[in-house]
């Protein structure tokens, strides 16, 4: 996978690209994430049919505060790409990738559980690892390491 191929396929949506240790990272806006995912999955030269991972990032004190990161893999071409989507703290919501890859189901639930990022159109957006009555989001940088006092 090269940046040129990516520019050719999804160039109009790319906000930023970065290459570090031969890994390509592409930043896109949240409004186009599903369009980008579909193109990357269905295009012959990309064919990213395998969603390796989807996770959140908290960049406090930077803004926009959150990032949703998708690590994609292609079983056909054996290559990888990383897609990042910045999200504002006040409006941490993004379209769910479950219509594209079913694998996103639990991964997005975990992301919601840990960061409080909401996924629009997710079939079952509940906490997955922490208990349902948990308050706060553990992987946010302002959540204390020892946890908060329970009432």
């Amino acid at each position: 996978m090269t940046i040129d191929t990516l520019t050719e396929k999804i160039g109009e949506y790319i906000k930023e690209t970065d290459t570090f240790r031969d890994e390509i990272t592409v930043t896109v806006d949240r409004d186009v994430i599903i369009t980008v995912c579909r193109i990357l999955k269905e295009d012959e030269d990309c064919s990213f049919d395998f969603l390796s991972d989807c996770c959140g990032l908290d960049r406090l004190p930077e803004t926009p505060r959150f990032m949703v990161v998708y690590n994609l893999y292609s079983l056909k071409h054996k290559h990888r790409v990383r897609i990042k989507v910045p999200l504002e703290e006040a409006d941490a919501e993004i379209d769910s990738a479950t219509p594209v890859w079913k694998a996103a189901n639990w991964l997005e639930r975990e992301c919601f559980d840990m960061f409080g990022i909401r996924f629009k159109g997710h079939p079952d957006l509940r906490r997955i690892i922490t208990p349902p009555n948990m308050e706060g989001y553990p992987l946010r940088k302002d959540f204390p390491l020892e946890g908060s006092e329970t009432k």
Partner: protein
Amino acid sequence: MTKKTITLNLGPQHPSTHGVLRVLLELDGEIVVDAKPDIGFLHRGFEKLAEHRTYRQNLVLTDRLDYLAAMSNNFAYVLAVEKLLGIEVPKRAQYIRVALVELQRIASHLFWLGTHAHDLGAMTPLFYALCEREDIMDIFEAISGGRLTPSFMRCGGLAADVDSSFVKNTKKFTDTFSSKVDVYENLLTENPIWKLRTRNVGKMSKEFCINTGISGPMARAAGIEWDLRKSNPYSSYEDFDFAIPTGLQGDVYDCYMMRIKEMRESAKIVRQAVDGLPESDGSPIKAKVNKFPAGEVYHSIESPRGELGFYIVSDGGKSPARLRVRPPSFVNLQGMGELVRGQLLSDVVAIIGMIDIVLAEVDR
């Protein structure tokens, strides 16, 4: 007449769930109508902890992720850190690492084989499988002092070099291992009861596996010829000659065959690694690691359960700004609900076993 279903709690404390997994089953008689796995009982906040510890300290945490394959976790983590640093470890260290993780794969598969057969009512294989696993644990203990959680790898190399006794013990193990696998196969492969319990149970299609993110032996059982050791080689895997077994039907039986065949292949790799072990050139087995650059990397390996990846975001500090684990058990388990639907209650146990979950890795 109205159809009535009952709800049954399988777990969280149930012998077949290998840890603390709770499955909410909706049953119509003996048929499963719906299944909802409930996880998180073993959550220890690994990813949060990792942000508060140095790169070196985090290594110890990785052992505890998947305690049946601690070496593999160490390995995936140090490879990701080394990728961040942009360093390559000496050939000798690479070969030792390969030998160790392949031994670990065998140990993990042996434990799986024993407990899985036990879950389905066959008690004998467990005692046989644990004998050879014990030999591997002894090898680990001799080099690292630890059996279950060796923490033997280091960012930049290994904790120590191995000596001739390691080579001798490992060769002794690989010499006889293939005949031991024949013994397990004698007990199960053509066993009619085993076949009845596993054939055509929990069938997976290729498309299902890819779409659900299922990797490792499960995906190969469904016929996907994909193994990260071959497709994206790391740590000199390209030097070794081994095959990737694939199945056809993706049922419980195929998953069993995959792991049996993988153990044989792993033993071959171990043998090649110790036979071709490059002599030490006198340089230390561990490179000095001081400064961690800012940047982000993702590195994944083929762990005994599938694609185990570490995604590290570094801001240049002593601790990672974010350390994300891509746990194969977690992703593989999410297909379970769909796999058990329409099957018999007793098959649920077979299907949970087929996934080969380690709940400590699922919950982190």
